[in-house]
């Protein structure tokens, strides 16, 4: 019963949004998904488009290694064998991938931040540490890398230059997950502001919208949400995981899974409108256990993986 007040609050936001939104074209899957990347004895997963839409980055089971292909899945080349495939992110110039790597010594994992470049070179940003319970994030137009360490911001020079198109823009905030917070931060102040919608929750898979105005995230043990970057306008999108934004910032693609505690028994990809009005199953016509989607920068394709055959699939999208 205590939920009523917050529900009313959400409904009022929703009605406000509906009054100003113009009709948005609805994404519709076109035909069956097709395999785009497949190698014998390899299981690929977690595909991610480069921001320019010309490359695809993938990893393999256990998030081991990184590979890059052209936008059509051809010209597969390995970037690294390291355990680098969890939580990586492209630079805005599509030339670099920021990630955390690790190696074992005496049963203990040593973790470091690295940037891998598409030309095959790499920069190690931090030393290998005993503990690194956070993932690195690009900041300040990719010139900086920030990492949360014991609740504080550590910033590092990424050795990347500000893209020309960004030089005239105002300073850009970054968004990170702390132990129980969604935080908005700035460099060089290295300060953060708590913009969490809930107290005492743990958050996962934070994604900033392409227009920079919204955040999508999961609550651990809970649902998928979007909100404005100032922490207002919270919208509950229901059960869904691993969100990725559509380029128009009006839709999110995420997976809705069922598991038996040992394995995923069913998973479909859903296009979720950020106003909460649309929930479209994109993979209802396939028997594939479709996971880990990523929306192409031109909005026309969605990549995903399936552990059934270890291939990367592409699903065409029309509006």
């Amino acid at each position: 019963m205590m939920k009523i007040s917050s529900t009313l609050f959400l409904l009022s936001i929703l009605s406000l949004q509906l009054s100003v939104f113009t009709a948005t074209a609805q994404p519709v899957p076109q035909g069956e998904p097709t395999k785009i990347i497949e190698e014998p004895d390899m299981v690929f997963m977690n595909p991610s488009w480069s921001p320019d839409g010309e490359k695809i980055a993938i990893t393999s089971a256990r998030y081991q290694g990184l590979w890059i292909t052209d936008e059509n899945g051809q010209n597969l080349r390995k970037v690294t064998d390291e355990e680098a495939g969890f939580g990586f992110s492209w630079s805005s110039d599509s030339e670099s991938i920021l990630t955390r790597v690790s190696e074992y010594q005496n049963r203990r994992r040593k973790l470091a931040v690295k940037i891998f470049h598409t030309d095959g070179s790499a920069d190690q940003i931090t030393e290998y540490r005993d503990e690194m319970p956070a993932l690195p994030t690009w900041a300040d137009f990719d010139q900086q890398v920030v990492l949360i360490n014991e609740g504080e911001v550590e910033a590092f020079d990424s050795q990347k230059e500000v893209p020309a198109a960004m030089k005239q823009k105002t300073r850009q905030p970054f968004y990170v997950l702390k132990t129980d917070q969604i935080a908005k931060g700035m460099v060089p102040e290295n300060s953060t502001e708590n913009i969490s919608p809930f107290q005492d929750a743990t958050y996962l898979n934070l994604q900033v919208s392409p227009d920079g105005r919204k955040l999508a995230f999961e609550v651990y043990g809970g649902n998928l949400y979007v909100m404005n970057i100032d922490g207002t306008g919270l919208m509950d999108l229901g059960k869904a995981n691993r969100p990725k934004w559509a380029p128009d910032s009006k839709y999110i693609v995420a997976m809705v899974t069922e598991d038996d505690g040992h394995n995923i028994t069913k998973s479909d990809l859903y296009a979720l409108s950020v106003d909460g009005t649309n929930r479209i199953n994109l993979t209802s016509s396939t028997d594939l256990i479709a996971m880990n989607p990523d929306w192409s920068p031109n909005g026309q394709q969605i990549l995903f993986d399936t552990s059934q055959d270890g291939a990367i699939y592409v699903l065409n999208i029309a509006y």
Partner: protein
Amino acid sequence: MKSYLFTCIIALLTTFQYAQAQTVTGLDGFSIFLDPGHSETENMGLYNYSEPEKVLRVGLALRDMLLTQTDIDTVYMSRTSDSQQVPLTQRDDLANATGADFYHSIHSNAGSNTQNNTLFLYGGWRSNGQTVEKTPNGGKDMGDIMETELTDAMRIPTIGNWADRNFYQGSNVENHSNQYPYLFVNRTTNMASVLSEAGFHTNSIQQQRNLNADWKRLEAQSFFWSILEYLGVERPPVGIAAGYITNADGAKTLNGINVQVGDTTYVTDSYESLFHKYSSESDELSNGFYYLDGLENGPTQLIVSGEGFYPDTLDINVIEDDFTFTDVALVSSVPPFVATTSVGEDNEINPGEDLIIEFSRSMNRSSVENALSLSPGADFSLTWTSNKKLIISTASFDFESSYTLKIDSTALDNSSYAHSLDGNGDGSQGDSFTLTFATGPVDIIPPAISDIRPTNTRLNELWPIISATFDEPLDTTLFDENTVDLSNSGYSVPGEIVYYNVGDRSVINFFPSERLAKSKNYTLTFSKSISDTVGNSLGSDVARTFPTGDQDIKNETVVDDFESGLTGTWWTPEQSGSTEGYDPEFTSVEIDNNIVNLFSESTGAMRINYGWDTDETSHLIREYRGSKTTPKFGTDRILQVYVFGDGNGNKFRFMVRDGNGELEGSTWYTVDWLGWKLVTWNMAEDETVAWANGNGTLNGNLYLDSFQLTYTPGQPATGFILFDDLKAVEMGLATSTEESPVAADIPEEIELKQNYPNPFNPTTNISFGLPQKSRVALKVFDMLGREVATVYNGVKTQGFHTVSFDASNLSSGVYLYRIETDFGVISKKMTLLK
């Protein structure tokens, strides 16, 4: 509401401050992610206690040991409360984000009530004939250590530490087609990982232990030691005495027993202290488990006492580097009495029925036999099925007479105290037991035949199971080729008779060995010689005529023929959260290798034993097919399964999941038949019923979700049902070429063909043809005429048959093989060349 909902979650990532001085160093720089498997009360175990409830407490106890006793950096947990619902993907996302060094997924297993063992699964598969462990390595090493420690702690068998894909998809392969871990937690964690299965929550003995809070500490303690060993750290000293207290007579574990070492005491669980939460019956549950922690090391005394038992004191030595296990069997101080007899409330027994006497405790057999007398006298024999249970034969008793059975007080129990009988059950030994009963009249009533199938309506199948039910057991020694006759225009269809006793009733099933001709009239006759066990026969033949149809199976998709067992697919009934209103004591699922569908030469059928809690208002057993989403089939198919019914009038139905993920079912089928019957759901024509998220409409491709059973009020609350050869079929017009037997396939007279191959080493095939059903003896002789082997001895139907002969035990040479039938004898030679 929101803040309340998430209050528990903050604990997940907290690095706990140590509440007491740490005694163990060497874990600095190490962090572990503990994952108590599943959520809420999923995977319900026996006694309404679920796997997630148990493993959460093991995980919390392990976390506390690591944090309070060592200098470990961080312990992360995937769940810290019973109310959290956490999907697999979030568990692994959280673990991967933390950068923890090791992932331990804590589970317990499910299966039949008889299974109980430990199992460990690390990420691994077969590549080029070798088992490969996932990188980062470490899961295998940890699993090896845990296998020893947990198995020793639980004192149950283990089935080992396995690469997960080898366990689920076989290890005897060169290469697995998927070269990556099978389990999600191994496949998508980027650290070393292992999943442990600590016994079965579907095993009644294990689950009664699982209910005990300290049992979970025992499991956690073994994991704690395993982690220390994995890191090369010596374990700190402990003083833990643990074990089971049982009744020396029968080994039942005892409730409410005091166990004491020095000043430390423990009272085993009792109905009042614990079991009332899980059972309404005060004597249903017990575990006899004690766990005394914090003891001083060295020699001491374990003192055990409880009401109704002689106290016992044992010398033990509490060791510092492991559990000190001591099991104690207490001797009851209650003298023996007669607990039950098979004489009912009518005080009557029929001559021929067993008179069963059950004592309260183990008896000295000879003292009982010497103390037993019957008046008036009659011949009887005594059979002990255990030291508690005595069976007295009554075959020689007179009908309609009165008898008195007496067991004198000189009957003694088997204990070292040798208590004498408490015949009147007043708690004091030394008095005799007397039972007066009457015998019933002689049985002159023939067996009643009913539920003859097929009925006289047109058949939809050309492979019908012939069936008739009888109201009492039959004398099977009188069965012959005429017991059941199925004929068309004078041609008797060959087939095989099977007979089953179910409770007080019985059933004859006849499986034709060839397809019936389409659109014909068949006559079915049950012989007048069919008799009950005391010789009362039907007296006259019971005949029925039925017409066949013209439809046969054109296409079929086998969903499950149950030849590969149930493991890894079908859940136990209690595992499904939808199962309710059932009695766990009588509910289980297993493969039955004896009652099978003969049409498919089946070797196994799925048997569900059920028991209903008649005090409940809702009753459902969901026999769930686990994560199997294949094979898929269309809505135009007919779902069919061979069902062996117990005739109890309870119900079952099919449940499928359609292309929208919605659950849709057939209507309920009332199981009012005994024996085998083909049950079909024509999904295109028959009604569809919504269940759970369903809407009553079948959309897209389907797969089988479950069989469901429910109770019919007023019907028997316990029983069983078997399923075999579950298929989705498409029917069509039967082809004429498959109609009646081809004349050439039935010889006019007996034929014996030349064996093939010949010469042979060491096996060969021998074919023969029979003009009619016949007894057959196929024997092998050496050239001196000595019989060296009997290849076959039994009854065969008309037509040709082939049997295999293995001559491994014979030396090279020429042999004679000879067939003896009702129609003559033929011999041929064959050559064994080794």
